[in-house]
């Protein structure tokens, strides 16, 4: 029998508000009017571009008449109604599928500029917005998808993430920053991207008071930095003034001349951390002395946090069942790599594995139904690994949950393993991309699932992330094995290649990967398989791949093996990365998804407006 809401007698009170009203109807009208004025030549190209980006429409690859519409999902929390609306909008105005980004946005690609206002209009119906999703603004505020269910968290940071998002959205203080600005909330030290944001926050309690450990000035890009800790503890009543102080400092002092060096991390780096830190404290004092009524009204943490998230505390996020292998029943394999138990006893987080974040409109509808049927909180979260997490699922429901998803191709295993490869949109839609990172990520995922690598627990804490250029939208620098796209001349032929990095990681202990070597696009999969093979020969007893790689970059591998540092592994891979001559195998010199000679074509990026 189909389960009913009866399992959750007070479910209505638990569900997030069906229309959180992030969007505004009048903005869609204005956008539509401005497109017309732009087409008539009454708004300059520069002015229009700034306006367009401020409203979340990014120019598409070498085709300025099309946009990528970036839908912000504050804290990643999304309702079934919103998913269904996105499905309908994608079908009507985009390409019939949507793309989950690495920052909890959902993107619709190749929308005709003339239709962007229609997409925005539809989003307003379900309370979503694209406002300040691109441009020199505060981008989508991220929150760990485990927030509220993580056994290691001290309290749920979700309401704070939403309050901060709402506080800054359309706030005059951040409408024209020197550059984009990112805020990420963790749930605990481990889960989240706290060290690679302009402001990263970990919820912590001190003497019974809620507060945060705040990191500033991190971020990935052509030059990346790990954030610095501001102070030991920032109590929740200083959260908004601290964030305001940082934003205002950046607004005032950030580099507005050099587009390549105007993220806040450069300011921090050039000024020196201690000086910046002192200025933040000073600025915070003036903010607190002059705080306006408007500020106090604007900032409101929703205390009606779903009570289901406050249930009793269990243990760590454990795997759901014992060992599996490639011959195991598909359901068991899925259970093993896609489901973990929450801190609330008897409830599970179920991950939906996507391929590089892509999901069709029909799949979105099935997902919406699944959430309605099985999630005790009535919503889902999208994750920086480009998947979805459905939470508060009961164990009895797991088989039906699986069967429903399997019918629509959403029950692939490996969501929580290295098989779930991250890939930015690359040459499928981005002006900056050099390579088809998106397709490569999907190719790796299907190959690895075919090989059953999702079942290998020693690979589980590793990750693979790919960007199509050095700009890090694929977050390659925090992957165990990361790649970013480029072009190299090999044997006289321009070839798509990737620079491979080792040893990056996220969380509070976040660190940036170290560059190892360049690998031709068509040799990436073989190289990964070879690395795993070498690891299995070389590792000492129970060492996971991530641990072994961590030692390798520090050159502290001891024991039986031949491979002790990065130079050794480079040598071991020389054979694997080499290509046959271009005449013998021209395809090896082409990129994925192409049957013509490779050439690196890029146009002006719009990351900076």
């Amino acid at each position, binding site marked *: 029998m189909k389960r009913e809401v009866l399992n959750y007698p007070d479910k209505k009170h638990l569900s997030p508000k069906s229309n959180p009203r992030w969007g505004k109807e009048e903005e869609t009208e204005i956008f539509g009017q401005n497109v017309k004025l732009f087409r008539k030549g009454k708004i300059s190209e520069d002015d229009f571009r700034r306006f367009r980006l401020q409203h979340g429409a990014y120019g598409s690859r070498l085709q300025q008449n099309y946009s990528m519409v970036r839908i912000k999902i504050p804290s990643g929390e999304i309702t079934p109604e919103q998913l269904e609306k996105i499905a309908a909008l994608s079908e009507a105005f985009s390409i019939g*599928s949507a793309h989950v980004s690495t920052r909890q946005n959902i993107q619709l*690609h190749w929308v005709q500029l003339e239709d962007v206002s229609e997409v925005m209009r539809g989003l307003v119906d379900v309370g979503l917005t694209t406002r300040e999703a691109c441009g020199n603004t505060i981008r989508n505020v991220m929150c760990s998808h485990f927030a509220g269910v993580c056994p290691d968290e001290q309290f749920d940071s979700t309401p704070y993430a939403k309050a901060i998002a709402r506080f800054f959205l359309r706030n005059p203080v951040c409408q024209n920053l020197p550059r984009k600005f990112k805020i990420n909330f963790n749930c605990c030290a481990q889960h989240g991207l706290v060290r690679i944001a302009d402001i990263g926050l970990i919820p912590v309690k001190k003497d019974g008071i809620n507060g945060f450990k705040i990191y500033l000035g991190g971020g990935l890009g052509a030059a990346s930095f790990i954030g610095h800790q501001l102070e030991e503890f920032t109590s929740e009543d200083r959260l908004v003034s601290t964030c305001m102080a940082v934003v205002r400092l950046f607004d005032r002092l950030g580099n507005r001349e050099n587009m390549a060096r105007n993220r806040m991390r450069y300011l921090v780096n050039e000024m020196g951390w201690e000086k910046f830190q002192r200025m933040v404290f000073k600025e915070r004092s003036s903010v607190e002395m002059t705080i306006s009524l408007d500020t106090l009204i604007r900032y409101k943490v929703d205390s009606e946090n779903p009570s289901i998230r406050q249930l009793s505390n269990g243990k760590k996020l454990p795997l759901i069942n014992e060992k599996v292998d490639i011959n195991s029943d598909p359901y068991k394999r899925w259970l093993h790599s896609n489901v973990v138990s929450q801190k609330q006893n008897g409830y599970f987080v179920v991950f939906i594995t996507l391929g590089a974040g892509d999901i069709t409109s029909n799949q979105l509808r099935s997902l919406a139904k699944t959430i309605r049927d099985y999630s005790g909180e009535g919503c889902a979260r999208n994750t920086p690994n480009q998947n979805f997490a459905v939470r508060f699922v009961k164990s009895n429901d797991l088989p039906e949950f699986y069967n429903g998803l399997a019918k629509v191709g959403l029950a692939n295993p490996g969501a929580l393993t290295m098989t779930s490869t991250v890939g930015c949109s690359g040459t499928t839609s981005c002006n900056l991309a050099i390579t088809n990172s998106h397709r490569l990520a999907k190719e790796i995922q299907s190959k690895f699932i075919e090989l059953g690598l999702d079942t290998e627990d020693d690979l589980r804490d590793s990750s693979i992330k790919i960007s199509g250029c050095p700009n890090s939208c694929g977050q390659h620098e925090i992957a165990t094995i990361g790649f970013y796209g480029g072009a190299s001349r090999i044997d006289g032929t321009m070839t798509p290649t990737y620079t491979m990095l080792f040893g990056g990681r996220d969380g509070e202990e976040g660190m940036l990967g170290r560059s190892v070597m360049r690998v031709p696009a068509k040799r990436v999969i073989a190289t990964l398989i070879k690395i795993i093979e070498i690891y299995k020969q070389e590792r000492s007893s129970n060492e996971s791949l991530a641990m072994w790689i961590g030692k390798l970059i520090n050159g502290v591998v001891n024991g039986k093996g031949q491979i002790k540092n990065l130079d050794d592994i480079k040598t071991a891979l020389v054979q694997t990365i080499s290509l046959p001559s271009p005449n013998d195998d021209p395809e090896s010199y082409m990129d994925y998804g192409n049957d013509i000679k490779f050439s690196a074509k890029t146009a002006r990026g719009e990351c900076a407006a």
Partner: protein
Amino acid sequence: MCGLKYTVKEKKTKNILSRNHTLSNSQDIITSADILRTLIRRNSVRVVDVRKEDEYKKEHIKTAVSIPLATVLENDSSERIVQLLEQSGISDKTPVVVYDDTFGALAARVAWTFQYVGHSNTSLLELTFAKWKSYGFETEKKINVFPPAKHSLKENKEIYATYDEVERAKSEQNKILVDSRERLNFLSEHIPGATNLPYTMLGTADSILREPQEIKRFMENRGISIDDEVITYCGSVGTLSGLAYYALRMGGVKKIRLYSKSFKEWKKLGKPIEEFKDANFWDLSAE
């Protein structure tokens, strides 16, 4: 359309029953389920099912006759189409309502053909067969045969475009070429100068065509005025563009033609096409 208001209903009913009227406004393009049910009860309509004959035989809307799209396409002469109408008991004056189970595109192509040979009193059912059935409206299995009727032939050449008209449109002012295929097909290749209005934009889950004011807004967004001369085309036989033909009519465009042989003929003739190969957009699809 799907509002089913009493006043609208009256108006629509009057229109569809009026003699010799021409297609000029939205009420004539779409027939609501409510009105069709009334017309069926009054026995004053010929309902045409354009699905495959097998599907018709399994179940169809009450009183419907079967004229599959394939039959219409095979009989590629106006005389033959008139014969099909006559065999189905459709005279010049008979109101005809056409339906399919494919979001309206097949029905649109057949309706357009009827209008091309001079049967102006033709409209599209707002629902697909599946929707009609899901509402529990009247269906039957009986194969309906009606006494043959007499139908004149009056070719309506103003609604048809040949490839050379498409070619000329490019250099003429106020002529707009509309490609109604899906976005990625359009991006890959299209007739130079065409604007993309994917068929996916035209309908909703509840109706094969959106409200006229929405279609109008889409047109305005694209700079299509009701005084422009529009030619629609799609991939092969003019189904998707047939739906676009009716959508734009509903949006108020007065002069509109269907290039029914569409991109398939255009390519076969070796005419110029605009291609875009610098992005791997197909790899974004999750299928």
